């Protein structure tokens, strides 16, 4: 089987210069060296070193940075950025520093930032592709990511756990379990579970792991090298198979027979095992009791009714007392079955038999070439010296090689991701591709300075967040001067803050929040669906519901059929690595805000909340509504317009038989407010 896409990149792009011939190392592969801080004229603007790099470029272009954002805009932006919720009406804004500090200390921070990471690792609660089997245990990995961000787990440690958690030492069982859960990163990919060619299936799964690892952690497309030497990035085919050998030596699947089953690591304690055993014994005993009871009752039936053989449904002819006793026994059995302890498992990998793979010529597993000793791509890092031992998979060594300060890509890729999540665009716009065909950094010195700073500061994501958020660069207004529009039309120089539409999850969470419906309970198994069962089969019936009022991160992510609100508002395809979400404006979003049951339900709840709250005067009610939705006071004109709208709407509604009184007209107003640009965009 030939990897056709790889050939596509060969044929389409052969006209471009290749790396190997140049003798100059591609920028992303040079060692990270913190550059000196640049000199600037407008020193008063500088809040921290980030600003020096940004301002130096602006001054070169003879541009002034935008003035600081209003406190209202900045507060809203920080809330969205750090916790993905709106400021409440009573949330005060003393200073950016205090707000940043407070928000980062809330558990909602981890939920917001975990979701970014889940985009990158193509997290989903179902397999997608051909057979859409449920990942009913994927949520443990999701919760692990939330906890990791909340505890500010050093990024290098975070990566070690996800690539090789099962091979790391642990001091206690909780840590062992955490480490096992983390390896879900490698197991969560979409797989062709009904692929009849089993070798192909196995190589496709390995390819998916390598591709995800490459793009998510190193910003490199390694998958191409499956069929040919990578034309633009320095990964020859033999090194691809040397790397693939590490995953071949890793157990990801338990069975390849249709429908194939992925591996899950057991998380049960000896006590839980014992408990389960005991419970199984109880169940068996109860079943025996019931069988004996039926046997006796049947005998009795035969004798009492002088029958030769039992009727088809003998229990219907038992005496009332016997039937009641049987029902009681069965009831107990059912309760026991319902209470059966479910032993916990987590999607993840473990080491298999250590083996080397041959090169498969042109990606075809039926034409093997020379055997490749397991190793890492030479050009992508200098860390590894010792060869991988014959008896280990090499996954731990791979993890250490990636999570190393000597790896030129790991820190650069992550600081760029964090920058993207704060600014809507990375310093390297192609967040998942730092290769020859990716975008070049707009601020290469800043990128390297941040990468160096990140490693020096213990790979702490929270510290990096704080550094960026406390910069004058971040705190600018989104208003662009005419000069900026002319000389920096696409905001490549960060001459202003970006105008951004809120993302799908903050949109949903905000609607639940203002209508007082939001349930902030954290973690756990929210979606009840049997593991491995198909979420969609030939009936096309959707058994998944999204009715929960919990935060969006806890809703099921179904590949091939993402929740409509998510899909409409640019939730990424959960089958692929996504560091940069697009932001579209399409009519079906309008239909959603106008007509969806979710928007009607939440706006009705918001209107009900308004009508139930004291005081009752329309003007005060409108003030309250503005505080909840926009976190500001309405102007006199806005107040007048809003009240007029409610009045006119009520008049129109009065003509209908089914009019709902003031609730309807206030709901109509609420719906307009949450559909407005002020609500949907961050300034």
């Amino acid at each position, binding site marked *: 089987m030939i990897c056709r896409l790889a050939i596509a*990149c060969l044929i389409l792009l052969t006209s471009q210069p290749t790396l190997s011939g140049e003798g100059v190392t591609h920028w992303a592969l040079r060692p990270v060296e913190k550059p000196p801080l640049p000199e600037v004229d407008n020193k008063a603007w500088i809040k921290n070193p980030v600003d020096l790099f940004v301002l130096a470029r602006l001054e070169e272009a003879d541009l002034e940075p935008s003035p600081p954002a209003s406190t209202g805009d900045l507060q809203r932006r920080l809330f969205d950025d750090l916790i993905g919720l709106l400021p409440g009406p009573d949330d005060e804004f003393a200073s950016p520093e205090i707000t940043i500090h407070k928000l980062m200390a809330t558990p909602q921070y981890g939920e917001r930032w975990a979701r970014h990471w889940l985009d990158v690792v193509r997290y989903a609660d179902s397999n997608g592709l*051909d057979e859409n089997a449920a990942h009913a245990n994927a949520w443990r990995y999701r919760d692990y990511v939330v906890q990791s961000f909340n505890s500010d787990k050093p990024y290098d440690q975070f990566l070690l756990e996800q690539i090789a958690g099962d091979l790391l030492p642990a001091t206690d069982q909780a840590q062992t379990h955490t480490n096992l859960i983390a390896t879900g990163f490698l197991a969560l990919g979409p797989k062709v579970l009904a*692929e009849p060619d089993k070798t192909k299936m196995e190589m496709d799964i390995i390819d998916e792991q390598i591709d995800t690892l490459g793009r998510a952690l190193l910003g490199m497309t390694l998958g191409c090298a499956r069929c040919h030497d990578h034309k633009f990035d320095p990964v020859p085919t033999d090194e691809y198979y040397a790397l693939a050998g590490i995953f071949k030596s890793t157990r990801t699947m338990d069975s390849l027979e249709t429908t194939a089953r992925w591996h899950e690591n057991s998380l049960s304690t000896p006590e839980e095992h014992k408990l389960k055993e005991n419970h199984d014994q109880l169940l068996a005993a109860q079943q025996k009791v019931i069988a004996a009871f039926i046997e006796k009752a049947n005998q009795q039936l035969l004798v009492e009714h002088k029958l030769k053989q039992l009727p088809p449904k003998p229990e219907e002819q038992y005496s009332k007392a016997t039937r009641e006793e049987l029902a009681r026994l069965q009831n107990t059995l059912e309760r026991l079955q319902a209470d059966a302890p479910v032993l916990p498992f987590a999607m993840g990998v473990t080491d298999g038999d250590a083996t080397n793979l041959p090169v498969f010529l042109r990606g075809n597993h039926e034409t093997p070439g020379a055997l490749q000793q397991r190793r890492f791509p030479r050009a992508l890092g200098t860390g590894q010296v010792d060869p991988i031992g014959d008896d280990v998979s090499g996954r731990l060594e791979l993890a250490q090689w990636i999570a190393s300060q000597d790896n030129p890509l790991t820190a650069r890729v992550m600081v760029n991701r964090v920058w993207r999540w704060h600014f809507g665009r990375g310093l390297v716009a192609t967040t998942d591709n730092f290769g020859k065909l990716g975008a070049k950094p707009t601020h290469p010195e800043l990128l390297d300075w941040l990468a160096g700073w990140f490693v020096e500061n213990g790979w702490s994501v929270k510290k990096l967040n704080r550094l960026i958020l406390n910069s004058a660069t971040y705190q600018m207004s989104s208003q662009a001067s005419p000069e900026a529009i002319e000389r920096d039309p696409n905001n490549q120089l960060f001459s202003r803050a970006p105008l951004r539409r809120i993302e799908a999850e903050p949109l949903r969470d905000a609607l639940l929040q203002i209508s007082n419906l939001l349930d902030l309970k954290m973690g756990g198994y929210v979606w009840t669906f049997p593991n491995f069962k198909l979420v969609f089969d030939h*009936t096309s*019936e959707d058994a998944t519901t999204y009715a929960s009022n919990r935060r969006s991160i806890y809703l099921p992510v179904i590949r*091939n059929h993402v929740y*409509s609100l998510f*899909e409409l508002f640019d939730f990424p395809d959960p089958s692929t690595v996504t560091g940069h979400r697009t932001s579209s*404006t399409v009519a079906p979003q309008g239909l959603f805000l106008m007509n969806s*049951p979710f928007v009607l339900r939440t706006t009705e709840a918001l209107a009900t909340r308004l009508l139930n709250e004291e005081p009752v005067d329309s003007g005060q009610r409108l003030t309250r509504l503005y505080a909840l939705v926009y976190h500001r006071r309405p102007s006199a004109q806005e107040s007048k317009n809003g009240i007029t709208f409610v009045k006119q709407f009520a008049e129109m509604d009065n003509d209908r038989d089914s009019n709902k009184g003031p609730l309807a007209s206030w709901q109509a107003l609420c719906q307009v407010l949450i559909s407005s640009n002020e609500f949907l965009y961050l300034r």
Partner: protein
Amino acid sequence: MISRRDILRQTALGFGSIALTSLLEEQVLAEKPRELKNPHFVPRAKRVIFLFMKGGPSQVDTFEYKPQLQRDHGKELPFAKPKVTFAPTGNLLASPWRFTQHGQCGHYVSELFPQVAKHVDDICFLHGLHGTNPAHGAASLKLHTGADNFVRPSMGAWINYGLGTENANLPAFVTICPTLGHGGVNNWGGAFLPAKFAGTPISNASVPAKNARMHHITNPQWTLAEQRMQLDFLRQLNRDQIGSPVSSDLESRIHSFELAFRMQTSMPEIQEIGDESEATHKLYGLDNPVTEDFGRQCLLARRFCERGVRFVQVTHSDSKVQWDQHGNLRRGHAEKASEVDQPIAGLLEDLKTRGLLNDTLVVWSGEFGRTPTVQGSDNDGRDHNPWGFTMWMAGGGVKGGTRHGATDEYGFYAERGKVHIHDFHATLLYLLGIDHEKLTYRHGGRDFRLTDVFGNVVHDILS
């Protein structure tokens, strides 16, 4: 740099242009979309109706007559079966249905399709189709997207990207009652293309066609007049909030609501088929409970086409086993064929009468065919067969009354006039005036195509 005037002009142009902000953003990212300004070739078709027979109808029981198979019933297949198959099969199984010749061209059609058989002079049969994967999901994804192990844009999305829409109030790509299994949304998705190019589903296969609606197209609570009032107030709020200079993003948002509002009338209007004559209802089989459901889908397809929708997919997929007869072939295939025969014939007839068949391409296919070898305990089933199967086309630019290619004497492997799925895609785009090698989209540093690096236009079938 795109000026505000450009934005307003483009936004006014149509449904598609509303997604302008994502285009702007992609320019920043150097992931440039390359919309087709002019067709590469003279288009022979303006629009496509794709009749998808989910499950895999058997070519040797429908449209490709194999007398040798009838003679050698029960014998061993005299050559090797594929190395990798979906499931084992036994010896040859003759078709339980009689084939007779039809039309001027004298094409053999089995008694499963007596109505479609009347239209063979308008149909071009491709008997040498072949794909790569013998499992439903992968084969379906291959047929719809050209890829079976990656998520890629679907053919309708590519066509939408290349040609856009002819009707500002409707989506360019509609899929009626699609199946959610075996690739689900990805079979009509846009993958990395901007969101606006993905298909718009009208419910899914679990919903009877008469209840199928576009998502969120109606409001259970407000009248249109009330919504108008809301949108007017929204417009006022947004106008007050737009600072100077105008942000294109905010402007597009305002327009997207207006388009949504118009769609609330334009979409349901298409589905209200009361204005169609009784003869038309009958023509599509709406008077018969067996054909009513698929007939309605076919009629909707025609109504969408008439109003400028570019690509309409109609899926024949029910809650049972579709065309997937590993056993019970006699009953299953007879039942499936009876559900679609009249509606498909009615659609062809109707398109022809209305002069639409000239520039509408109708395509009929499953994700694969079935083996001529037997399966199942009662010797009444066939396995999946991606190595050789039949697809047919009618209308827009193809030669009617012809056949192209053939499988071997038993119907197992495509042997002559082989047409791979990639070749089908290349031909489909060609008929619409698009060079499949030139319709590309840059993503993640690569220029992608529907046909990847493959695909040859099947010139022999062009009229």
